[in-house]
């Protein structure tokens, strides 16, 4: 089996189950149908952003600008829909175009110009934050409609509330997992992250793979913007200020290597869930939220140590 994507989600899954078990035992309120449903709803935005981050990290890159791209996209959508009176569906498509275009631009800089992803996305972050604030300084509210469609939902088994957004994030994870592990494109993504020069010599068009990854990441950020409207029908240039670090945290806890070429999207989504479970559980237990930060930080370091350890032991 390829070690690149061999059961990379088992570790984070165990951690998640352990955390759930601990909070179930130690608090009265954590393990309830409503709270589990809530945590899933809380996962949709960072969870979706983390998928794009995973793709980029798999190619040995890093994306510091994902939150900024999403926020700019969301602002464009909101302004078109509320200020300019464009139908919401069309405004949403424009958001996908904006985020996809920005992803393509970043991908072009990384592939064609061979610039380091850290620097490219740092530049994007700085520019886009300013661009968002030039665009508007205020919170923009959106009306109910296609933009807030993901907030709709129904009940499973009579009482378990599932929103369209939660279903969509799960579908997105599944589709991406399939694409990464069962298609040529996916293998090429891993190969580029393993060793770009080797991939090139195996006949893989490395630039095109990189471009496709950044484009797809951009589209996922637009999807995250849509998910964010489902969570809260408003956006502002100050929203999600730490999305970049939050997603890197989720990806790393999820077992994807920051050195590229190994890991997967399921782990990243579980990583996002772990952070939320810690957040929720410690709140239910009435414990200072700073312990949540400490726990998350320890998990990140352990996950990276584990990655180093497996990489070294296989060399």
């Amino acid at each position, binding site marked *: 089996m390829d070690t690149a994507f061999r059961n990379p989600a088992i570790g984070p899954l165990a951690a998640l189950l352990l955390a759930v078990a601990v909070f179930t035992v130690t608090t009265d309120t954590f393990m309830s149908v409503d709270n589990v449903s809530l945590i899933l709803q809380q996962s949709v935005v960072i969870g979706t952003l983390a998928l794009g981050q995973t793709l980029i990290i798999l190619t040995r890159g890093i994306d510091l600008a994902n939150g900024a791209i999403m926020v700019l996209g969301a602002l464009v959508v909101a302004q078109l829909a509320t200020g300019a009176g464009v139908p919401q569906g069309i405004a949403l498509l424009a958001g996908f175009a904006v985020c996809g275009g920005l992803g393509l631009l970043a991908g072009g800089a990384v592939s064609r110009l061979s610039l380091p992803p850290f620097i490219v996305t740092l530049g994007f972050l700085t520019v886009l934050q300013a661009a968002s604030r030039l665009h508007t300084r205020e919170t923009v509210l959106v009306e109910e409609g296609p933009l807030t469609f993901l907030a709709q939902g129904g009940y499973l088994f009579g009482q378990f509330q599932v929103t369209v957004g939660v279903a969509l994030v799960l579908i997105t994870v599944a589709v991406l997992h399939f694409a990464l592990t069962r298609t040529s494109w996916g293998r090429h993504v891993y190969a580029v992250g393993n060793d770009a020069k080797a991939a*090139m010599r195996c*006949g893989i068009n490395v630039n095109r793979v990189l471009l496709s990854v950044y484009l797809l990441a951009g589209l996922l950020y637009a999807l995250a913007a849509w998910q964010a409207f489902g969570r809260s029908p408003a956006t502002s240039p100050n929203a999600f200020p730490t999305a970049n670090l939050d997603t890197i945290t989720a990806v790393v806890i999820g077992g994807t290597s920051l050195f590229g070429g190994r890991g997967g999207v399921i782990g990243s989504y579980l990583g996002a869930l772990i952070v939320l479970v810690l957040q929720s559980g410690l709140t239910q237990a009435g414990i200072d939220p700073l312990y949540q930060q400490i726990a998350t930080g320890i998990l990140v370091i352990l996950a990276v140590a584990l990655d180093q350890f497996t990489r070294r032991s*296989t060399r």
Partner: protein
Amino acid sequence: MTPILQARGIVKRYGHVTAIDGADFDLEAGEVLAVVGDNGAGKSSLINVLSGAVLPDAGEVLLAGSPVHFKSPHDARLAGIETVYQDLAVAPAMDIASNLYLGREIRRPGWRGKVLRQLDIRAMRQRAQKQLDELGITTLQSITQSVENLSGGQRQSVAVARAAAFGSKVVIMDEPTAALGVRESAQVLELIGTIRDRGIPVVLISHNMPHVFQIADRIHIHRLGKRAAVVSPREHTMNDVVAIMTGATELAA
């Protein structure tokens, strides 16, 4: 007969370093051509041009007499030229079957392949196993081992097997025995013989003179970025070759 693969007046510069300085190259049908030369003579650079990994600054490459312009290794691969690079060009976290089929994956038949573009992982594994068996490569136990878990020699076998399995016109090997033990080296040499017997010419870059003299039909001696001479191992001794390599003797190319 026209040579299968030719190069004329190839020049490649890296900044101030001239890696190839107007080199010529000829590979005849059905032969094993050894390429020898000191470290830094420009051997790898030359074969990188032949395999499309590097674009030359000047000169032309001809395949079966007609000029070709490889823009990437992909182009060369499509033309039937397979290469074992000095640094192997394998993806460490992927298994042997995946590496053999990297960049030429097989899709599932039917709608799953066409619509979902789903890979046929089982077919790739089966065929990879068959190819290894046919080539008589016994050093690799399981096709599903990750390349990073293999020894240096086993990794080299993977790269050699890949080139041997897919090269239809030309197989180029840049120091394929560098990391190998005596037995494994003998296997690779045998493999080179097998490939030649199938009618596919092989370019072998090596610093190991006994190997070269054992297997090569002709020896291309590279010196200071140029072809210094082409000699026959039957008419020249190892000492002659070393003398030309180091510039102690000159011989018309």
